[in-house]
């Protein structure tokens, strides 16, 4: 799963707080969101370039999931707007896939792994004759090749989460939103999935927004890291990650830059929690 495709990466190093590029895949403009009188998101602006991977970190309850739901079109901003390729997002859109945090609820328990992936193909009108081959390829890619006929209840948490990712890929999305997708996995599975996802994102050129609690995961995956601050949720810091791609579980994590970033983020988060 080592795929070299640096060309799809955006250039790094410019002033990233006020991006000027006119070709953002996603543009978040002064977005706020309130439930009643309670403001959850308090003015977030951000441009995300095509093919870029953004990691989002922040303390529990700061609005990470809420932000992701707005990007998916599942929640409507109270003010401001989210744009996809220059047009305002009015609701859910087939080219934006989201991997939900609660994978158990997002799968159809009465369909097998293959059937769950098939749902995305049926939705976009893929002809029946073409589906089996696509399904097999996707399941193979995500390491579920031999479990195509299993029902979700017969799969482990990690397998279910992989299945959800496979279904999102079947959507052929331009944007992949991930909400702490590897939260409940052991370290080894987690690292394997991180590499799988990075490889898939690189081959498809998809743009990814990845929410995580894990600082190292945020650094390992991201081109930029957005640190959200709570009450109401807003962007505290944006940190550039200047680490070579493709990344490597051992080499990247031993890199001086990786260790420096980890220190920097740790200090930042510590301040937020005081």
């Amino acid at each position, binding site marked *: 799963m080592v795929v070299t495709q640096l060309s799809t990466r955006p250039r790094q190093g410019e002033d990233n707080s006020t991006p000027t590029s006119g070709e953002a895949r996603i543009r978040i403009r002064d977005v706020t969101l309130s439930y009643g009188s309670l403001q959850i998101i308090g003015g977030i602006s951000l441009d995300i370039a095509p093919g870029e991977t953004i990691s989002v970190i922040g303390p529990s309850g700061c609005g990470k999931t809420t932000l992701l739901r707005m990007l*998916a*079109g*599942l929640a409507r901003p109270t003010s401001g707007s989210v744009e996809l390729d220059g047009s305002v997002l009015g*609701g*859910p*859109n*087939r080219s*934006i*896939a*989201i991997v*939900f945090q*609660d994978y158990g*609820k*997002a799968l*159809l*328990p*009465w*369909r097998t792994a293959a059937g769950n992936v098939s*749902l*995305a193909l*049926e*939705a*976009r009108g893929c002809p029946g004759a073409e589906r089996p081959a696509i399904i097999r390829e996707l399941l193979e890619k995500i390491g579920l090749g031999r479990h195509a006929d299993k*029902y979700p*209840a*017969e799969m482990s948490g990690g397998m279910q989460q992989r299945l959800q990712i496979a279904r999102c890929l079947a*959507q052929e999305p331009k944007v992949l939103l991930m909400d702490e997708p590897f939260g409940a996995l052991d370290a080894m599975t987690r690292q394997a999935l991180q590499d799988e996802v990075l490889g898939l994102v690189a081959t498809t050129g998809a743009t990814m927004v990845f929410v995580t609690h894990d600082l190292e995961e945020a650094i390992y995956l991201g081109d930029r890291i957005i640190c959200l601050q709570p009450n109401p949720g807003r962007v505290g810091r944006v940190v550039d990650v200047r680490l070579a791609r493709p990344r490597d579980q051992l080499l990247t994590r031993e890199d001086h830059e990786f260790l420096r970033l980890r220190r920097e983020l740790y200090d930042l988060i510590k301040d937020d929690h005081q």
Partner: protein
Amino acid sequence: MKHFSLRKLLLGCGALALFILAWKLVTDAKLVSPIFFPGPERTYAALVKGLSGGAMLSQTLETVQRMLLGWLLASFVGVFLGALIGVSRRARAFIAPTLELLRPLPASAMIPIAIAFLGFSDNMVLVVIAFGALWPMLLATIHGFAAMEPRLYEVSAVLGLSRAQVIWKLALPSAMPMILASLRLGLTISLILAVVGEMLASRQGLGQSILAASRSFRSPDLFAGIVILGAIGLVGSRLLSFAERRLLRWQAVNR
């Protein structure tokens, strides 16, 4: 697992044998006059004679056909209407109170109305069966749709499923456990109403023949009819349980 179900079968047969034995003891001791209450042997003899002689067999088929027709009608209408109402939150809020008002009405209350409109006809009986058996299916479908995991609605929106696809591929399968249970209940109600309808409207069938047997003090025939009714109910419910297990295989692995 096979072993376990075999044991359950044996236990069931044992209980049945015990029941027949008790029946025999009560009738042999003449606790109740044999004119009203025949023993198992006389009932069995009447059963064999009725089924081989022809009259009871054709009546049984008549009743089974009536029950199945009414049940199918109720199932299609119930699930279809339930889906229409259940898929929209507004329709649910709008119609649910009316349904709650109508539902507790006993189906027999419908009979005079049905007679007034349709007279003493086969269609009248059919309408009564369908109306009475409709409720479990209708309400189970509505509730099944309402109880669908909200996350799945979001999944369908993100995938861009059409409304028809949401009903057909998400809501119906997710409501299927409730719907299947209600189909079983509906079948029982259909059988009861088929018999009652036949008695009231004097239509060909087991209901009428049981009533006739009772009026002319042919108690073995009466009891033979009751035994057949019990058997119809048992077979129907068994067949549906079997279908249920096949269709809900995905659920069995959950446990």
